């Protein structure tokens, strides 16, 4: 059962921004480390796992938010998540083929995560029904 709206929403927002911040920090940290020649071999592989951990943490934050929400908020959040994931997968799949066969500029794989969350935000006002 839903307990209290405000704390769950606040925790979700704080958690989301913390994970996004961690992701960007890890990303630019690894990039700076490689450019400075400080990261290579096993250290590089270990450092590259940091952005992945931020993505996993974000998923846990979302699941916790859904568990603390009522059935309507849970359903709408799941719907937004699925639509945003579908659009992200579809968009990057199409782009990948166009990269290979139409000579489009390469888009780094780490763009996927921020693109997904931008879509989640954009979809927010449009998905307001659980149907």
């Amino acid at each position, binding site marked *: 059962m839903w*307990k209290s*709206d405000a704390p769950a929403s606040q925790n979700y927002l704080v958690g989301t921004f913390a994970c996004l911040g961690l992701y960007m920090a890890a990303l630019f940290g690894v990039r700076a480390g490689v450019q400075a020649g400080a990261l290579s071999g096993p250290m590089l592989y270990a450092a590259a796992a940091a952005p992945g951990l931020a993505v996993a943490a974000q998923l846990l934050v979302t699941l916790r938010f859904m568990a603390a929400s009522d*059935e*309507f*908020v849970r359903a*709408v959040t799941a719907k937004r998540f699925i639509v945003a994931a579908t659009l992200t997968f579809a968009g990057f799949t199409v782009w990948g083929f166009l990269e290979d066969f139409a000579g489009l500029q390469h888009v780094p794989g780490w763009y996927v995560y921020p693109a997904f969350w931008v879509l989640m935000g954009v979809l927010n006002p449009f998905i*307001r*029904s*659980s149907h």
Partner: protein
Amino acid sequence: MKNRLRVLRAERGWTQEELGKRLGVSRQAVNALETEKHDPSLDLAYRIAAAFELKVEEVFENPHAA
């Protein structure tokens, strides 16, 4: 699902927030129920009926009624 939630709430002078607290759901959920953007679970439908001291079929229209 068609329902009389908004009318019943207005008759009792409750806000969406107040009804949400009685039901244990958010104000957004009450709004979504009133505007038919969410069909309640069986559990929530019974909680709503209990809050208004009515039967479920007195709050919600049975979409499968002959």
